[in-house]
């Protein structure tokens, strides 16, 4: 009986519990709702929650734990002489899983009976043929160890499944019995239901923390693994990036850092002036009609998926720059993918980011400061340059830092627009690559997670995570500190 059925059983019990709980409470009050502590439905919900919560918690924990426990105990059955590395062991175990699932199918479809299976020997029966007939293809003949392990795996799983169903079913029944027995008109059903609901709300809120922990642990564990295989000094201070899956790779992060930095710099050089001037114009100069029309238009740029910008860089901006700076004219550029291509397009993407954040900050500068400046005879542009911008400066710096962290973490534009060669060069028309682009190239495909070439991606991810996090925290701190001044 698979887990779905016991789940449905628990759900059905919960519904029964609802009906029983509600009815018993009503009966104890003699059908008069005014005598009861809570509304009638709360007694029902209370009983249902008593059924659901413990039973489902145990079911969930069991589903996670059972494969691990059985996996470990079956692994002990395989003699240590049969394998040398953990990789070989996992190969044997995956064989065991396949054979076990094949045997299970054979029994359920009636090809063999359970006693026949118990008596099966690796040498005497054609296990491979039997498995083939139920649609499980095995590469070589099944040896005795694997067959025994598979038989035990199947048997233990079956026992554990039965045990699980009994435990969960009993728990659900006991929960229902307890709840219904305790129910009478004076029972504080609402309080008990609300406690459970509050616990669920807290659980949902802590998921965000769990996600962060998940990110940190998954990055950290693999990064440590990587630094065991590859010295960290070479990683942080190496100036060549030359991974080769055959071994002997040089994995220095500096060229990737340089590419990331260079592209972000160009992107900010495009986005900050345009974004800032646009924000000043829209908040100080533009008539209402222009503002209500231009602001949403600029913000459309922020809603466009990055894959679109990537394609735009690869197929439109790259060739355009190539005709302007390529071998046919000045000869600075040899291919469409370059730092300039990715930087320009990323700059376009960041314009609304800078402009809408700066717009908010400029609008937060109190009107009295403008009035004071005008009263002294300053023109509008003098007011903006000498009063508003200095007052808004911390906020604007925060906005630029947020934009920078966006630029550093951006992936699709650089994957498609910046090229793949890791270089330390000053020429913005050359192809370079970034941290994010290399994470993608090291982790796509069937990489072996034990090799430094794949694990390096986690170290890169960790570096990226730390940098963007630091930038964000710093930027938010600046913005918050600034806001306190005028509130």
């Amino acid at each position: 009986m698979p887990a779905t059925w016991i789940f449905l059983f628990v759900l059905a019990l919960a519904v029964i519990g609802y009906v029983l709980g509600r009815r018993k409470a009503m009966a104890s009050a003699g059908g008069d709702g005014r005598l009861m502590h809570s509304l009638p439905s709360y007694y029902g919900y209370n009983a249902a929650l008593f059924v659901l919560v413990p039973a489902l918690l145990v079911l969930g924990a069991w589903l996670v734990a059972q494969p691990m426990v059985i996996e470990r105990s079956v692994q002990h059955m395989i003699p240590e002489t049969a394998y040398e590395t953990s990789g070989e062991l996992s190969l044997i175990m995956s064989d065991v899983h396949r054979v076990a699932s094949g045997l299970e199918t054979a029994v359920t479809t009636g090809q063999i009976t359970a006693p026949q299976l118990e008596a099966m020997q690796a040498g005497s029966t054609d296990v491979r043929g039997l498995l083939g007939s139920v649609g499980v293809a095995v590469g070589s003949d099944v040896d005795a160890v694997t067959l025994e392990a598979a038989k035990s795996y199947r048997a233990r799983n079956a026992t554990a499944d039965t045990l699980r169903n009994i435990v969960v079913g009993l728990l659900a029944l006991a929960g229902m019995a307890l709840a219904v027995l305790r129910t009478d008109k004076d029972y504080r059903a609402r309080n008990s239901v609300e406690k459970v609901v509050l616990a669920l709300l807290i659980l949902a809120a802590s998921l965000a923390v769990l996600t962060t922990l998940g990110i940190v642990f998954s990055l950290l564990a693999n990064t440590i693994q990587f630094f065991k295989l590859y010295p960290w000094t070479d990683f942080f201070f190496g100036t060549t990036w030359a991974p080769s899956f055959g071994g002997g790779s040089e994995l220095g992060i500096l060229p990737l850092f340089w590419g990331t930095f260079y592209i972000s710099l160009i992107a900010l050089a495009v986005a900050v002036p345009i974004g800032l001037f646009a924000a000043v114009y829209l908040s100080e100069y533009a008539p209402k009609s222009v503002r209500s029309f231009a602001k949403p238009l600029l913000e459309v740029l922020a809603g466009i998926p990055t894959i679109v910008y990537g394609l735009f860089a690869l197929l439109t901006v790259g060739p355009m720059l190539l005709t302007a700076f390529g071998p046919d004219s000045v000869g600075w550029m040899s291919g469409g993918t370059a730092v300039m291509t990715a930087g320009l397009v990323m700059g376009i993407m960041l314009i609304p980011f800078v402009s809408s954040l700066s717009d908010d900050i400029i609008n937060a500068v109190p009107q009295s400061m403008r009035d004071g400046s005008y009263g002294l005879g300053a023109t509008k542009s003098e007011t903006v340059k000498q009063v508003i911008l200095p007052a808004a400066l911390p906020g604007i710096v925060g906005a630029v830092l947020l934009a920078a962290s966006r630029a550093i973490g951006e992936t699709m534009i650089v994957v498609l627009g910046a090229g793949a060669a890791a270089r330390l060069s000053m020429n913005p028309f050359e192809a370079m690559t970034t941290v994010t682009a290399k994470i993608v190239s090291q982790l796509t495909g069937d990489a072996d997670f034990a090799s430094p070439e794949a694990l390096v991606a986690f170290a890169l991810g960790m570096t990226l995570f730390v940098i963007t996090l630091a930038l964000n925290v710093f930027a938010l701190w600046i913005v918050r500190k600034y806001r306190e001044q005028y509130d």
Partner: protein
Amino acid sequence: MTDASLSGPDSTPLPQGKTSLLAQDSRTKRRNAAEKRFRFYGMAAVGVGVLFLVVLLVAIVRNGTPAFTQTFIELPVQLSQEKLDPDQTGDPEVIKKTSTFGYNGMIDQALLDLMAAHGLDSPFDKGADLRKMISASVPAQVRDYAIAHPDQIGQTVVFKVLASSRVDGYEKGRVTREALARDKNLDAEHLDLVDQMRDAGILKRSFNLDFILGTDASESRPEQAGIGASMVGSFFMMLVVLFLSLPIGVAASIYLEEFAPKNWITDVIEVNISNLAAVPSIVFGILGLAVFIQFAELPQSAPLVGGLVLTLMTLPTIIISTRASLKAVPPSIRDAALGVGASKMQSVFHHVLPLAMPGILTGTILGLAQALGETAPLLLIGMVGYIASNFPDGIAAGFLDPNSAMPAQIYEWAKRADPAYYERAWGGIIILLVFLLTMNFIAIILRRRFERRW
């Protein structure tokens, strides 16, 4: 505003002689010019931003619209009796014995007959040379028809077959005669023939529904590729995102906004959420790879895993917008509910939440739109590189079988060498943007219709 009143010993010396309010002195002129310049810079910045948007949209529409039409050739093929079903059994099993390769002869003959019937001046004597002009998918198309209609065997059936991608490119102005000089797939003579066929009315460009509803094809047949299967993948992913992120996000927001005590734990959660919203999306991809695929051993490339990763990514966005709409419900509503005897929980679930629902839904739709266009995390969990040539059969398969997603499919096409795929990628972007526009439009309507000012 003039500087006349500023004439004093400390200020810059003014022009000698009389000053007048009507005549501007040079300093005022300079300041006014600076003012005009500054204003112009601002206008130019807004103009440049809008110009970028226009260029981007024009590039998308101009490069993408050709993907929605395709060149077809009307080809009468005689389904040879002795080749397919010599004993006249009419049994599909017998017909299935002929592989797609076995149909090539029939198609070659059909092409030669077509040339002869329309009196076209063909430089090719062999059908195999003519076959370069039609898609490699044609034999399979004819075979599928023959298996589905055994009674038609021995008859001549008119098929609307796809022209090869080079011919299609010529019709769309992408392929020129000069470019074909180095191309072994098609010769310039073929193009002369294409001109004649177009004049004879047997080669036509028409709307290609298969691009929207069809499945992806292998690298060598861009003319056959469609985005339909990856659309289904995206749909299942969005289902996962919707059904996980909406309840979890709303529950988390309710706790943080209505129940959380002011202490350091709550602060940690709040700072955490605002920082998670700014973590690069690729990091979520790494998380998904490590937790869902490496640790939990969920299947690679499955929409379920993609949905889980995107859920984690959109949760902070949804929580932030939900909290804003909960905050917008005035405290008097809560006080009134508490005053008539409701518990705190009842006041929230019976009164505050329904009033905040339009705002929450708007935020959720915008979060979903963001998730729909996200590509980077999908690269890491293997939703690229997979050729989505089949539709999933059934709902469980939709969640668990390998599939692609719309943005991942577009990336996949952009990476392929054949320029015909670039056109597909642009076309795919049009479809993706149509979805995003629709979602944003729904969000705006919801906001307009149900937004309440207190």
